[in-house]
């Protein structure tokens, strides 16, 4: 079920009512919200509900086994079993096709024509990367004694809770499980409606209006036909994709966070004006924050993090970013995207280290340096997006080649409304952070009728400006 649909609006009205009516009784509320979440997931394909249940079982049983293990070896064994279980599901559904084709082509290049892994068409279940990472963090946190195992029903609600189920944010057990356990204490008189409405309306506008427009006006035509477009169009398409993916994904998570708020739950923030980042390190503190903190806590730091010699730190960064790329999709272009970010971060790390060794601040502080840092970071991020969006390396390199060789030729897709949409969306990232809060305070002070009129007109604006129908969110594929 997609958020910006009438189906979801009706579904949510029912769930909202049930959520608050059953709130005083956790014994009724938990089965209710779990059923609602499974219905939400089954809307896409009911057969994969079983997969969600199996993933939950692996997390719950794994967590319990880890907690009850009497020796370190037993605890570690239970952890390994659970992690392998999660990764096996993810590997089969997401990476089998990729691995089989890669393996087959490698054999072919060696002159061998065997097909030990037949290339099968395995349907990718939506949200599998997200709920797998949530399940993994739950078990690992218990192993690390950062979390106690929760009752089975709580774990089931934690994994399947529909606002985050399809495309995040990746909420940790220690953030959400206490809220589920305390669900009885949520006060139905204190729903954070202004913030939720702001997030939901903003998210809808970003997804339905901006992302859809930029996608159909420039990004789709250029990336799907790389050989016929000229440099100005390609440059605009790459900037456009930066805007499209930000509006698409942050729009989704804004709606998810807003929906959770209406139910009385607070999710962590997932985006913080990423294109205003002054370095790649800063970018990853602002972009898909729940994934970057997950990768930091469960991959980068266990690998050694910033400790050790330079080469080791560089290796840790590269491994983390390459696997982060692969998490997004089973294709070498995603690995290349991770590689670009990895190399950029290693370079940034070395630069900061050198400055510190010279007795200077790790980051330059001047205005010009800040501007230069932001410009460079944005363009490295855009270079990464080019590989992220391209279907193949051929497409990416064709676009790159044409970007430098076809200036001065006709560019019919380079139009003022597209430029305005892209520039405007990027400029919004530089607005002061307090502006959103000010809007919410104003909205909160409005009369109930004025609130309804404001929201109703907002919906009208979104449906009028948006195209007919709703395209799936980009991150559904991940």
């Amino acid at each position, binding site marked *: 079920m997609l958020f910006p649909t009438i189906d979801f*609006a009706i579904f949510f*009205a029912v769930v*909202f009512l049930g959520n*608050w009516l059953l709130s005083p009784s956790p014994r009724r509320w938990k089965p209710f919200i779990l059923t609602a979440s499974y219905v939400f997931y089954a809307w896409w394909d009911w057969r994969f509900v079983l997969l969600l249940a199996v993933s939950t079982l692996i997390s719950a049983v794994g967590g319990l086994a880890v907690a009850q293990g*009497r*020796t*370190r070896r037993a*605890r570690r064994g239970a952890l390994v079993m659970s992690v392998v279980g999660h990764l096996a599901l993810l590997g089969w559904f997401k990476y089998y*096709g990729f691995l089989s*084709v890669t393996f087959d*082509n490698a054999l*072919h*290049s060696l002159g061998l*024509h065997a097909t030990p892994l037949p*290339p*099968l*068409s395995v349907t990718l279940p939506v949200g599998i990367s997200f709920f797998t990472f949530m399940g993994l963090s739950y078990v690992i946190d218990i192993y690390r004694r*950062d*979390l*106690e195992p*929760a009752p089975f029903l709580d774990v089931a609600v934690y994994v399947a809770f529909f606002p985050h189920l399809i495309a995040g944010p990746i909420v940790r*057990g220690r953030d959400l*499980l*206490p809220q589920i*356990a*305390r669900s009885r*204490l949520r006060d*139905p008189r*204190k*729903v*954070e*409606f*202004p913030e939720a409405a702001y997030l939901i309306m903003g998210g809808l506008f970003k997804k339905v209006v901006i992302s859809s427009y930029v996608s159909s006006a420039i990004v789709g035509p250029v990336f*799907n*036909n790389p*050989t*016929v477009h000229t440099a100005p169009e390609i440059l605009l398409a790459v900037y456009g994709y930066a805007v499209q993916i930000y509006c698409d994904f942050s729009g989704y998570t804004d709606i998810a966070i807003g929906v959770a708020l*209406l139910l009385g739950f*607070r999710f962590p923030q997932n985006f913080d004006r990423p294109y205003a980042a002054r370095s790649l390190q800063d970018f990853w503190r602002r972009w898909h924050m729940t994934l970057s903190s997950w990768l930091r806590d469960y991959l980068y730091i266990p690998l050694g993090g910033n400790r050790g010699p330079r080469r080791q730190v560089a290796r840790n960064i590269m491994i983390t970013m390459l696997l982060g790329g692969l998490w997004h999709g089973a294709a070498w272009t995603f690995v290349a995207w991770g590689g670009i970010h990895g190399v950029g971060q290693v370079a940034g790390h070395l630069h900061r280290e050198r400055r510190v060794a010279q007795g200077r601040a790790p980051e330059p502080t001047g205005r010009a340096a800040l501007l230069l840092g932001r410009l460079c970071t944005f363009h490295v991020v855009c270079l990464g997006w080019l590989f992220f969006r391209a*279907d*193949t390396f*051929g*497409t990416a390199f064709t676009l790159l080649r044409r970007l430098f060789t076809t200036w001065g030729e006709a560019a019919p897709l380079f139009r003022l409304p597209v430029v305005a949409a892209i520039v405007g969306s990027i400029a919004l990232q530089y607005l002061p952070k307090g502006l959103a809060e000010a809007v*919410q*305070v104003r909205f*909160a002070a409005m009369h*109930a*009728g004025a609130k*309804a*009129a*404001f*929201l*109703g*007109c*907002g*919906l*009208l604006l979104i*449906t*009028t400006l948006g195209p007919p129908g709703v395209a799936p969110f980009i991150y559904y*594929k991940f």
Partner: protein
Amino acid sequence: MVPERRAPSARPPRHPSRRRAPGGRRRAPYVAPEGRTLAAGRALLVSLAAFGIWLALDARQLYTSAGASPLGARRSVALAILTPIARVQEFFGLDRVVDGANRALGGRAGVTPGVIALPPATAGHGGGRAKGAASPPTTANSFLQPSAAHPLSVLDVGDSIGIDLGYGLQDLLGTTRSVELQSASVGNTGLANPAYYDWPANLSVELARYHPQVVVALFGGNDWQPFIAEGRRADPGSSFWLQQYTARLRQMVDLVTASGAHLFWVGLPIMSPSSGLAGSVAPSLNAAFAAACSGNPNASYVSIYNLFASPTGSYAQFLPDASGNLVEVRDADGVHIAPPAGDDRAAAAVVRAIESTLHIHL
């Protein structure tokens, strides 16, 4: 074996809410900012009122969208709810404001409430040729070898699979100066639901705009659905549905060939067993496409069905390319053709068909 070290507290908490945060400090429960909350009941009422206002302002557009959705209970319920609201909107003149804004933004005005329940105006008229449709030519057109001075104009039309094919044609012909390629394919469209997108009407506009010599059409991805024709419900697979659908296809074939263009109607590729077009669906539609083209000297049917099948004849997402490497030729949804390898594979078959049928080299 070394016994496991116990947790710092003597009696570990059984409940996560009582667990200390990793930093050691007890995590304070979140408190909503004062003055920025609303009671749940009031929040629901405000939300419902907002939806009501939106519905009242946008009823005609929503009514139009509902009418364009596939036949079924969902559509009937939506129309039943939206018809009276749209009439009230019309009575108060609110529709003019919203339609004006829509037109200003390049969109379409909503339709008058009450008309959608009738059979679609451009639906097929019986099993024969559509009333008022142009007569098909009786002799084949002749074509000169295209050149940069006299390029061959090609128009690509269809649904989202047609868009995929268009990308392939662009890849293969986009840099050829002897071909002028235009794409007018529209996603989510087809011939089963003219209320959503009226292809005969739009095709007439495109033909008049571009005067193509060759039209490449690929439809069918969204057509396996019921529709209303002659006041009756036609269910996919029934003989009535097939008769009506073939009439709509013939209307399209006649429109193109009467304009002087040669039509290459491309069939659907083999579909994944998990898709709604699996089994005999795609072959049935392909048979209808071939039948609609038969007997017309300026219409050719191009099959790409087996082009996407494995050596055993089953659906394949990955197939070897010219050098023997496996490449992805179909999207994960099992319906669409994957760029670039799949698009190029389909487009190459179409280019071959154009060259051999028209005796030209592109």
